[in-house]
């Protein structure tokens, strides 16, 4: 690779990030920023779910772990007067600790049984929130969650969370940090080990990989970022109800991942971005979301099993094939 080619990638990433930072300057409507913020939330959730899925386990408790982060952070701020900036990481840590607790027994079962266990885990979290009315407000919800504390550096900076713009920058920062971290996992030997566990856990074990530990590690990392996202969500929406963290939400995340392409790091990002934006532009899609998603899912599984990220390659090989067939 020439030096010039090696610089193209970092340069285009930098350009993309700069562009993302400039978005609020051009987009004046609060509605559109709101959609972008929700897309950012979906991107972190889906990418962190993918890290868990790299080991071959599909978790259906991701929305539940997001709820753990959301309620932990909101309650710390509301009941114990924590600063939001302390409660944010604590939301992630709470979700990761719960993942650590249930992880060791959970990862011993495989595939569909793991999915079943996590499905129940998500349901249990939701039920606990619903029943623990004194703390969580139950089904009527936790209301009046304050926005993040203003960032003040006297005489220099004063950012108050009184419009969508600061939220946009906060989620952008969270997305960048999360993706950077998750990408490091993916591209280092850790990601290779996680993939090896998916492809043949007994082979991996036989060459000295502590399969259980790595599976739990992936689960904890994934749930940490779900918790962080939950914390952001709580102080952005300002109302938490158990219904926001249902089974369907968890399954949507799996759909985002599969539609985008779970084998590639960028697949989860692309899937989450496109599938959260799409229903916003076509109102009918939102009303019949499960129908539409089942359609999209079927089309992807049959025509593009490696997801939307593989579209360019699929098109390329199609174009190549045609002249060969004609000649």
């Amino acid at each position, binding site marked *: 690779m020439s030096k010039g080619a090696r610089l193209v990638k970092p340069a285009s990433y930098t350009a993309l990030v700069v562009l993302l930072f400039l978005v609020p300057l051009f987009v004046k409507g609060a509605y559109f920023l709101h959609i972008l913020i929700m897309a950012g939330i979906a991107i972190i959730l889906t990418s962190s779910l993918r890290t868990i899925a790299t080991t071959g386990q599909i978790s259906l408790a991701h929305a539940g772990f997001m709820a753990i982060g959301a309620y932990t952070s909101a309650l710390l701020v509301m009941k114990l007067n924590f600063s939001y900036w302390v409660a944010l990481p604590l939301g992630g840590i709470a979700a990761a600790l719960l993942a650590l607790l249930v992880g060791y027994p959970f990862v011993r079962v495989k595939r569909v049984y793991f999915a079943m266990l996590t499905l129940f885990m998500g349901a249990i979290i939701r039920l606990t929130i619903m029943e623990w009315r004194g703390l969580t407000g139950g089904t009527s919800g936790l209301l009046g969650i304050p926005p993040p504390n203003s960032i003040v550096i006297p005489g220099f900076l004063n950012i108050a969370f009184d419009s969508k713009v600061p939220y946009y920058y906060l989620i952008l920062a969270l997305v960048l940090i999360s993706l950077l*971290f998750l990408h*490091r996992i993916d591209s*280092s030997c850790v990601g290779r080990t996680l993939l090896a566990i998916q492809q*043949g856990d007994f082979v991996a*074990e036989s060459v000295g990989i*502590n399969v259980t530990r790595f599976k739990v*590690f992936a689960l904890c990392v994934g749930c940490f970022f779900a918790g962080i996202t939950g914390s952001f969500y709580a102080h952005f929406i300002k109302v938490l109800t158990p219904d926001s963290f249902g089974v369907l939400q968890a399954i949507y995340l799996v759909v985002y991942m599969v539609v985008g392409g779970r084998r590639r790091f960028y697949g989860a990002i692309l899937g989450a971005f496109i599938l959260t934006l799409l229903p916003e532009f076509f109102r009918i899609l939102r009303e019949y979301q499960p129908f539409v998603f089942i359609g999209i899912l079927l089309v992807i599984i049959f025509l593009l099993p490696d997801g939307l990220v593989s579209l360019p390659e699929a098109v390329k090989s199609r174009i190549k094939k045609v002249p060969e067939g004609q000649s």
Partner: protein
Amino acid sequence: MLEIRGLTKYFGGLSAVNNLDMTVNQGEIVGLIGPNGAGKTTVFNLITGFIRPTKGQIIFEQSDITGQPTHSIADKGIVRTFQLNAFLQDMTVLQNALVSCHLHPKVGVWEAILNIPGYRKKEQYACDHAMDILQFLGLDSVKDELAQNLPHGHQRLLGIAMALSANPKLLLLDEPLSGMNAAEVRESLTFVNKIRSAGTTVLLVEHNMRAVMELCDKIVVINFGCKIAEGLPEEIRRNKDVIESYLGPGEDVT
């Protein structure tokens, strides 16, 4: 180096391995043979911790490894291959070998994720090591192929490459020659000899008698989980019990 004392494994009421004693000395190639269902693979599963013995002890380099988890036994230096092609289908040949390289030198999870200085050097070292192994087994020309696209002979060698990349002191080969043609068998025999010359002790299960006789310094024969003979290839060849139980009465081994 490896000492097995009174190893016994019951599956339900059936004994798969019964009171087995055997030793493998440093630098040897030892063959473990017996008819189908004699319990050879069970012995491998017991040594590498895939299953726990009902009774008995497994001593490796003076320390008791009985019942330890597979990954820590691999860490101590015992690595096995599998009868069926066991490798990582959807990863390249080089990636397959690299997966095993993380034991030596050890790479910490956070060290890798945070990309702290020293990680790159270790990764480069692992890469060189994996390439050396692939070159040794003649797989370097297909290093970027997906493992699932390799021909059968190469896939068998890839299993061995994965095991060797983990730098074992004792390598357990489970029917390394099955499904190979004559030329591939010859080639594999030289590989096993070279592996031993490089300092790795080998214990193998194999049905190809000619190859076992030629390759092994010592042979242990089991039937119905019990040891029925142990000795030099010459002795085994003439042992009446072995000929009868293993090859059927009235047949010549050679």
